[in-house]
Structure formats: C-alpha cells, structure tokens
C-alpha cells in the first residue's frame, strides 16, 4: 500500500486479498456456528462490524495460513482458496466456500501501480462479506458438530513448504452451488461461491 489513493501494487493487492480472507473466514466460522459465538469479539473494519475469533489455537492456525497465502498471492501461484466444512460424525463434506483467485501475472513483471483506489476495493470487499452474512438465510442448518479445513489450490510447479501437504479436493456429493459477488484489486480477482449439500426434504 505505497500510494494510498492513487493506485495499488502487487504487494498491496496481495495484502488486501489476504486480509479479506482472514475476515471472510472468521465471519463464515462465526455465522455457521463452527465455533461458539462467545469465543468471538467484535471489531470494526471496512466500515462495518466484524467478528474475530479469540480462540488462540484457531488464531494461530489462521495467521499461519494467511501469511503463507500472502506469499503465494505475491507470487501469483494460488488459484483457489476453499473452506471446507465437514461433519464430524459421518466425515461428510457439508459445505464448500470457494474463492477463485485470478492473478494478473503481468503485474509480476511491471511494478507500475494499477489505478484503482483502495476505497473502492474495500467497498467491493464489504459487499462480499455482507453477502456471506446473508447466505445464512438459505443455507441448511448444521445440526451435527462440524469442523473446518482450508484448502489452497496452487500451481503444480510450486514447492510444497513444510507443515503443508497435498490433499483431496473434498467435493460434495450432490451439491447445490450459489455464486456470490466478486471483487478485484485489478491484479487479483476473487470470485466467491458456496456449494452445499442438497437436503433430502427439497
């Protein structure tokens, strides 16, 4: 975030997107009740009130993932970030929050900042998070205890760092998909969507 109002660089873009993921994941975990609501605290960001976890283990995990993600965003090697919600009783995937990331790899070569103000980007991010909050109205209720996992889709030629390992895509059998809003920093474009397991009643 070198020039705050005039434009945005690759580094700034990566930081913005990583920040969005941090808040987005926190609000999904809060909204979907994966962690008890009393372990969250309210902060104000993007001109709106957001929930942030106070659970130390979860905090550590999220900072680990987000910092690594930032690196990858900077290298433009990440394709997707997926938040998978799994039922603990049946080991069945119930929800998939997928964030497709389109990187403009030309930004790696030219260091010239793009002309898009941070305010407009934050406005876009805010509307995405609002939509995530609103999805609770149509998503099926999670009746069983659930846990979540974060998957990162990266380019094949990437060196897998320590502590990371390869995983399956964890797809949902018979899913229903809903596309959410997207935002772009003009370097990274993030398309969000949620897929959830179809309920039998419908």
């Amino acid at each position: 975030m070198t020039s705050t109002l005039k434009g945005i660089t690759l580094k700034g873009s990566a930081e913005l997107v990583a920040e969005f993921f941090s808040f987005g994941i926190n609000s999904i975990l809060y909204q979907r009740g994966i962690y008890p609501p009393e372990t969250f605290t309210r902060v104000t960001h993007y001109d709106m009130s957001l929930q942030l976890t106070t659970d130390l283990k979860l905090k550590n995990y999220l900072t680990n993932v987000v910092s690594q993600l930032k690196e990858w965003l900077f290298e433009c090697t990440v394709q997707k970030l997926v938040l998978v919600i799994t039922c603990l009783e049946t080991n069945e995937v119930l929800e998939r929050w997928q964030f497709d990331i389109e990187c403009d790899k030309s930004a790696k070569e030219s260091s010239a900042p793009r002309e898009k103000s941070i305010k407009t980007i934050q406005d876009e991010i805010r509307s995405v998070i609002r939509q995530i909050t609103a999805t609770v109205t149509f998503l099926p209720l999670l009746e069983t205890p659930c846990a979540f996992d974060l998957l990162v889709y990266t380019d094949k030629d990437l060196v897998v760092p320590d502590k990371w390992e390869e995983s399956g895509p964890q797809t949902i059998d018979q899913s229903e998909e809903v596309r959410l809003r997207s935002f772009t920093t003009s370097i990274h474009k993030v398309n969000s969507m949620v897929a959830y397991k179809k309920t039998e009643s419908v």
Partner: protein
Amino acid sequence: MDLEDDTTILTTLKSFNSFISRPEHPQRLSEHSAGSGILQSQYKRSMELLEAAERVHSKNRYLQLDQEKKQMELSHKRARFELEKAASDSARDLEHEVDRNQELLGQIKKLEERAEEANKKLTEQKEANDALQMNLEGLNKTLEERDDKLGAANQTISSLKDEIRELRQKIQNQDSKISGQTLENQELQEKLDLQQRKYQEVSQLCQSLQAAQSSCSEHIIKIKELERRLAFQEQDFAIVKTIKSEAARVPDLEKELKRLKDDNAYLRESRENCSLLKEEVEGLRKKLERMEKTKEELINMELEKERLTEKLHAWENLGQSTGLNIRKPEDLSREVIQIQQREIALKEQNYTLNSRVRSVERSQSELRAELTQQRSKTLEEQKKREAQDALVRRLQKRVLLLTKERDGMRAILESYDTELAPTEYSPQLSKRLREAEDILQKTQSHNAEMEAQLTKAQEETGTLKLQLQTAELELESLKKQQASATDSNSLLTKEEVTILRQKIEDLERERQRLEEQNNILEMRLERHNLQGDYDPVKTRVLHLKVNPTAIAKQERQQEVEALREEVTRLRDLVRSLQSGGAVGHSQDDTHNPSFSLSLAPSKEVLDLRKQMESSELRNQRLKEVFQRKIQEFRTVCYVLTGYQIDITTENQYRLTSVYAEHMDDSLLFKKGSNGSMQLMETEFSKTLGEMVALHLHHQKSIPAFLSAVTLDLFSRQTTV
C-alpha cells in the same frame, strides 16, 4: 359430649355436673314450698357460684399447666424426632438420650400421678362440699380447708412448674448437646460418605457443575446474544430498514424468482434451441448457396439441355441416319457407357499405344540412327556401286579393249596362222588364248558378283524405307492417342474435384459437431470447477497438516476409544456383578474399588428407606395424637364456654350455644384483617338486638355478649 372418659378434667366436670344437678330439685321444691328458705338458698347459691368460680379458676390454671406440660411433651417429642432423624449412626448416644427422656417421662408421669392425687383431694373437697350443703358451717370450714388445700395444690403445681422448667432447661441443654453431637455426627457422616461415595459424589458434583456451567454459559450466551443483538440493531439499523423494505418485497421477489427461474429454464432451452436453429440456419444458408449455385447450374443445364436436345435431335437424326438405335437416354447412356467402356478400352489401348509409341519412338530414334547409318552405308554402297559401276565400265571398256585386243590378237594370230603354219606356233597361241579366256571368265564372274552385291544393297535400302514408313505411321497414331488421352484426363480431374468438395463438406460438418461437443464439455468443466474439481496436471491442492478438522477428528477418535474402554470395563463389571459378589472379590484388585462403590448406594438406600419409614410412622402417630388432642380441646371448649366453635369458611367462625333452642340457632363471627372479630347477621342474631346494642355497640365486649347470650338461653331453658 363424652363424659365416660376417665381423664382428670372430665371426672371433675362430672362431679361438677352432679353437683349442679343435685341441688336443682330441692331448690325448686324450696321455691315452691316456702319463701323462708329464699335467703338461705340465695346465700347457698352465691356460695355455690363463688365456689364454682374458684373451682373454674383452679381448673383453668390446671388446664394451663396441663397444656404447658403437653406442649413440653410435644416439644420433647419433637426433639426426639430430631434426635432420631439426625443421629442415626450415633445411635448409642441417641438411645442414651432416649433413655434419659424416658426417665424424664417417668418423672412427668409421677407428676401427673401427683396431679391426680391432687384431683382426688379436690374430689374429697367436693364431697366435703356436698356435706357442706347439709351443713353450712361445716361447709365453710371445709371450704376453708379446701382453700388451703387448693393453695397447697397450687403451690405443688407451681413447684411442679418449676420442676418442669428445670426439666425443660435440661432438655434444652441436652438438645443443644445433641445438636452439637449431631453436627459432629453429620460432619463425620459427610466425611464418611465422602470417602465411601467419592465416585458418585464426584459424578453428581460434576453433573451439577455441568448443569450450573451450562446454565451459566447459557446465561452468558444470552447476555452476549442480547448485547450483540443490540449492537446489531444499533449499527445495522439502516440495513434493517432496507432489509425490511426488501423483506416486504420478498414474496414478490420470490414469485419473480420463480418466474425468472422458469424463464431461465425456458431461455436455456431456447438458447439450446437457438444454437440448434443457428446451426440449422447456417446449414440452410449453405444449402441455399448451394441451391443458388445449383440453380445457376440448372439454368446453364437447361441451356445446355436445349443445346443437348438439339444435339440429341441431331444425334437422333444422326442415329437414324447412321442407323444406330439411339431412342432413349438409356440407350444413350448405354451407348455412352459402351462408348466409355470403349473409351476406357481405347484409353488402355492408348496407354499401351503410348507406351508402344514411346518404345516405338525410342526404336524409331534408334532406327533413325540406324537409318542414318544405313543411309551413310547406302551412300557408301552407292559410292562403292558407283565406284564399282565405274570399275565395271572400266572393266567393260577393258573387256572391250581386251576383246578388241583379243580380236586383234586373233587376227594377228590367224594371220600368223595363216602366214605361219598352224603346226608350229598354234599350241603357243592356243595356250595364250586359253589364258586370256580364263581371265575374261574371271572378270565376268567378278562383275556378276558386284552386281549381286548392288542389288542386295538396293533391296536393303528398300526394306529400310518401308520400316521408316511404318514407324512414321505408328508415330502418327500414337500422337492421336495421346490427344484422346488428355481429353479423358480432364474428366478425371473433375470427378476428383467433386469428391474432394464432398470431403471438405464432411469435414466441415465434423468440425461443427466437435465444436458443439467442445462447448458442452466446457460447460461441464465449468460446473466441475464450481464443485471444486481441478486439473491435476496444472494444479495441486494443499492444506496445513495441523488443521482443525484433523484435530477434531483425532479428539473424537480418542474420545470414542476412551468410551469404548469404559464400556468394556463396565461390561466386565456388570458381568462380575451378575456372576456374584464372591467372584467379584476374587477378581483383580483394580475392580474392587469400583465394586465397593457400586454396592455403597444400595446400603444407603436401605438406610434411607428405613429412616423414611420411621419418620412416616412418626408422622402418622403425631397426626393421630394431634387429632385426638384437638378433639379434646374442642370438647373442653364446648363444655367450658358453652359454645361449639366451628370454622365454616376461611376467617369465619360459627358459635352454637349448648343451650340453643333450635339446632340452627347460631352466631357467626368474622375475623377482620386487623384481627378484630365482627358479628355477622344470622336469623338467631336478629332476635338478640338488645344484647347486641348493649354489649357490642356500647361495651364493645364479645365475651360479655356471649356470656349474656348464654345466661339468657340458660335462664330460658331452666325457667321452662
């Protein structure tokens, strides 16, 4: 009223009754008989009343004492209950205390006996009083004596009271001691219980704790929830408004959504249809183009046809003229096929001829070369011949010369012969002649040979010329064949072009089909992408090894294992319990604690059950005692005050006098909120207007009113 009861009070009452009932008759007699006895009787009556008052007073005191005693008994019993309840394990101490209590009870009984003795004395006094009726003076004396006795009795009663107080104090002391002991006992028992039932208590505590925690957490959650909601409401007020407006539109939107979904589906179908139609349109356009082309071709064809028909006519004419049977197109086609076949045959021939031409040309060139050679040869030959001709001419000339020479020679010879005699020189001459003749013959043969050679050479040239002519002919024919061959070649290329065009069209169709397939596959790919599929060649999926799901799963597994272990352990325990305590004891030491834990509650339950039974029994007894006492109290009240008091409803008391003329005559009192009693209006109370006005309104005394009513009723009864 049951006067058969043998209690002290009732016996006193009986005696009193008898006392009252006895003088009634004589009094009446005296009233009837003479007025002289009035004064005496009045005095008697006053004395009686006085006496009765005193007696009542003493009785009341006694009753009070008795009540106190009863109260003491009751409190004592209550203490006993508490003792029994509290000190189950320190039973020895309790029994000791109970023994003491029994002793005390015995003392109390003694006191009661003493009271009975006093009562007996009272009866004696009554007897003395009876005697006093016979003799006033004796009566006075006995009265005094009795007063003294009464005083003594009072003293004894007060002394008894003191004793009772002392006893009560003692009991209180004991109570306090017992309570201390019970406290100690309870502590000990609690400790004991703690040791005995550690597991159960812990679990109970845990449960209670959990419940408390859950309730606590629920409350906290509620509080937080409320706070959060408040915050949300405050902060997202604007959003809420918009949402409200949106919410109002929700059904419409839903409808619209439904409609749009339908539209969408319809549009999707129509899009597919559209693409299909587009393809069709494309195909049709192409067809149209082709059709136009074909149209043009058709026109051309028609023109051609015209031409051809003309030609055909010409042909037909020709056919007619030529004699070929060309009547129908089939014939023509047959003819054409025949011609084609012929052509093909001719072509083949052509090819063969071409090859032959080539070979012939080659041979021709060879022949030409040969020809030139031959020509040169012939030229040489001609030259030779000419040379030989010249030679022949020269030779002929020579021959002529020779012949002339010979002739000359002959002539010479003949002349010689004639001149000379034939005999001398003739042989020489003949010899010479012969030689000349031989030479001639030789030259002639040589000449003939040369001529033969010449003719031979001429023949040769003739054959060569013939060959040349045939070769030239062949060449021409070949040239013709070649021309026809080129014609057939152009036809072939046309066919090839059409074939190739068809192939191109096929390929175009194939391409379109593949494009559609490609589109479908791309759509599918997009859908798979949405569902989270990825290209394993380009992409890899990573996640942290230590992620919440893995941790949660691990924890869950551990929990399951622990539970499973517990289940197996408990199952073993159950089995051992089923197989019997002895087996359980004989098993491992690790099983024993849990075993004893499982047995402990049953023992306690039995204890508790016993306690409960005993307490219930006590309750029952107490109830019976209370009932009896209340009945007694009510009877006493009735007897003493002359009123039976019933509680009709809450705070309402009905008083029925013992002297009531009718069963229904009763007074109703209501207890006010401040504790004051108020008389309610009844049929009976209406008849007592004067007394109500005097005692209640003027004197404001209910007891006075009641006694006045009693006296009035009593007087009415007695006067009748």
